[in-house]
């Protein structure tokens, strides 16, 4: 990394920035600079994204044929469990907040760093320790409980590395809690003069809402996982009904976190989209306050809907009724966002750079993911769709079509800021289109499969389903190519990419008013004073604002 600074074609008088400030490995591993920590996260989550993707590949390879011939049932169970555990705890949850959020949030509010830089570093180290444990799980033979760790299978019967996987998730959980805590305090206390709450970029609002969930939700799953581990190690009954426990209690505790956690996996993405859409439509965002408060509404209502995962457990019908209503309600703020983004596009001066392609893809895919969520939120439908591929398709539309697209959107948007370099625009656009096409081909057939009744988590299926499964696997290959292209041209851009300048997109926001890459304490001219609203774009302005 440090070699970038030593490259001959950088302007010789290049001022010190966060990358070339120090060059030893230790100065990276024990840095308290939020930007360097963001880069550390970026590298680590990319590794885990690759691992999770590898397991997805195994799943899709197995499902090309109806017979369970490529993987044994046992291996297949491990493949989808590891895919889930790694993608959820080690990619999706930290993806946007820990990398892009860590990098730009302090700059956006006009601060030199997050409120607690050392805790930020601690949070990365916790993630690394958790990640090493997760790799340990993989090496030691995997885990086969599903990412949900449902007892009594996980506590009593599973012979795989449940305890180690739980510890890994526990560590990653506290890493996430500390990130959230840091963000909340930073947003409250570190804003520059003039940066009022309603001048904050919506990216910051989205992260604020996310952080509330991280701080209040994650500890519940932490203690729940501890209980599973205790039950498993000491053979005492907490959740196993044979020993007097109640497995449904586990499901309640688990989803009390894990449902809000799906908003941890989408809200930051929505924040990215709220930045990118106004920039590439040259318009102030439509309905700023509504988007800001809808983030908070999602975070709050999101805590009250967990029971929709338990319609077919022993949960009472009346509880189910309430959870169903609340689940419908949580769709409202999400819809508000979608309407406001599209209204922002209206009569905008729209251009389709790579980040904008991802953002448009996000809106479409999130819309499908969100609307199919309503189908699942109604109790009668859910009894039919429960544990079918319809559910798999639904949450992949939100998690992958939504969050992964948004993550890539943000990465392409802020890459010039983070590295000072531009990536090849054409290649990036091709990758974005490949991802969009591949994604739809992978997951749309799964809606039909689920509708026809194909259950999830089986390594074999009846022959009628083969065509749709082959389509899905073919789509996954296209999706894979779209993903694999990115590290190549992004790394290439570090070496050969043209120098980006301070503001290649002509974007608004404090992060575009500092050099690329920013210096260690972000604002070379001292603390900024904010005098204008967020997104004060004008349609006539040209794109070359640098």
């Amino acid at each position, binding site marked *: 990394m440090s070699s970038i600074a030593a490259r001959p074609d950088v302007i010789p008088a290049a001022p010190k920035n966060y990358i070339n400030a120090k060059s030893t490995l230790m100065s990276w591993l024990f840095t308290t600079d939020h930007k360097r920590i963001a880069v550390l996260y970026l590298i680590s989550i990319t590794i885990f994204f690759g691992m999770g993707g590898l397991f997805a590949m195994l799943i899709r390879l197995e499902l090309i044929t109806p017979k369970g011939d490529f993987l044994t049932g046992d291996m297949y169970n491990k493949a989808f469990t590891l895919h889930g555990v790694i993608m959820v705890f080690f990619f999706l949850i930290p993806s946007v907040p820990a990398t892009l959020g860590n990098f730009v949030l302090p700059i956006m509010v006009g601060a030199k760093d997050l409120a607690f830089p050392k805790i930020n570093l601690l949070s990365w180290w916790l993630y690394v320790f958790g990640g090493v444990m997760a790799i340990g799980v993989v090496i030691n033979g995997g885990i086969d409980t599903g990412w949900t760790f449902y007892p009594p299978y996980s506590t009593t019967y599973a012979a795989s590395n449940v305890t180690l996987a739980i510890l890994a998730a526990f560590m990653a959980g506290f890493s996430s809690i500390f990130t959230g*805590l840091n963000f909340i*305090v930073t947003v409250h206390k570190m804003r520059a003069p003039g940066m009022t709450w309603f001048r904050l970029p919506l990216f910051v609002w989205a992260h604020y809402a996310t952080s509330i969930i991280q701080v209040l939700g994650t*500890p519940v799953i932490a203690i729940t996982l501890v209980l599973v581990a205790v039950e498993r190690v000491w053979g005492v009954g907490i959740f196993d009904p044979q020993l007097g426990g109640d497995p449904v209690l586990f499901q309640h505790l688990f989803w009390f976190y894990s449902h809000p956690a799906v908003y941890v996996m989408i809200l930051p993405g929505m924040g990215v989209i709220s930045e990118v859409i106004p920039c590439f439509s040259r318009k102030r965002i439509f309905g700023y306050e509504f988007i800001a408060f809808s983030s908070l509404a999602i975070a709050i209502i999101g805590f009250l809907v967990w029971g929709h995962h338990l319609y077919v457990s022993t949960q009472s019908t009346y509880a189910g009724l309430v959870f169903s209503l609340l689940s419908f309600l949580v769709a409202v703020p999400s819809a508000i966002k979608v309407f406001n983004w599209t209204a922002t596009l209206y009569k905008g001066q729209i251009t389709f750079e790579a980040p904008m392609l991802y953002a448009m893809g996000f809106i479409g895919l999130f819309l499908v993911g969100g609307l199919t969520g309503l189908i699942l939120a109604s109790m009668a439908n859910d009894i039919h769709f429960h544990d079918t591929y319809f559910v798999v398709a639904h949450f992949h539309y939100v998690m992958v079509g939504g969050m992964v697209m948004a993550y890539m959107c943000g990465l392409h948007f802020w890459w010039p800021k983070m590295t000072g370099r531009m990536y090849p625009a054409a290649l990036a656009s091709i990758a974005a289109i490949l991802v969009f096409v591949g994604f739809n081909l992978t997951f749309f057939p799964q809606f039909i499969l689920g509708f026809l009744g194909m259950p999830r988590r089986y390594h074999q299926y009846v022959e009628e389903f083969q065509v749709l499964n082959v389509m899905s696997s073919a789509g996954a290959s296209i999706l894979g190519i779209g993903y694999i292209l990115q590290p190549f041209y992004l790394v290439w851009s570090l070496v050969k990419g043209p120098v980006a300048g301070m503001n290649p997109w002509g974007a608004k926001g404090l992060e575009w008013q500092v050099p690329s890459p920013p210096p260690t304490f972000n604002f070379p001219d001292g603390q900024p004073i904010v005098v204008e609203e967020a997104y004060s774009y004008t349609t006539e302005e040209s794109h070359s604002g640098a």
Partner: protein
Amino acid sequence: MAHSSDGLVAHHFEDLEQQTESAVLGMWLFLAQEVMFFGGLFVSYLVYRIKFPDAWATASGALNVWQGGGNTVVLLVSSVTMASSVWCAQTGRQRGLKLGLWLTLILGLTFLVVKYFEYKDKFFHHLIPGANFHWTGPVIGSPTEGQIELFFVLYFIMTGMHALHMIIGAGILIWIMALAYKGYFSPQRYMKVELFGFYWHFVDIVWVFLFPLLYLVQRHG
């Protein structure tokens, strides 16, 4: 909490007020997180107590109310000594600060020693959940042994988590005492004491809930 010790204001803050407010808010959020962490345990306790009232009444009788009650007093007094330590730190009373911290530490360790004897007693009476668990005491209603064992599972996890917080607290307390002896604290620089006070009071409050829930199940009027 996480600031460098050179100078009063860490590099990334504009002034002392911002730094202090950030630290206080950060600590409150950390405690909110702790409330949710223990909350998962309290919910589990509640669910099983409602499901198995007889087992709860029966098993609670095996806990020593005098030891538990005495420990409650010990912790409450330690909260007083901690609060006075914070006041001494704020007002620059160095001797009072050291005395308060010493008393807090001694009371905290007293709690842990009593807890140790309680656990040891459970061990001798086969009340540690697992293969050797065996209930021989008097029975209220008709609980199964598995249900009684479940009470003790929760008893050990809840008090164990609490004790773990006490041990961590004692560790931090010793570090703060070391700082106090170095003359680190002054009326301008006392946040570490104050924030630790937050934590210590929180751990006390957890016990204030644990004591009646675990020890006094069958002792209400």
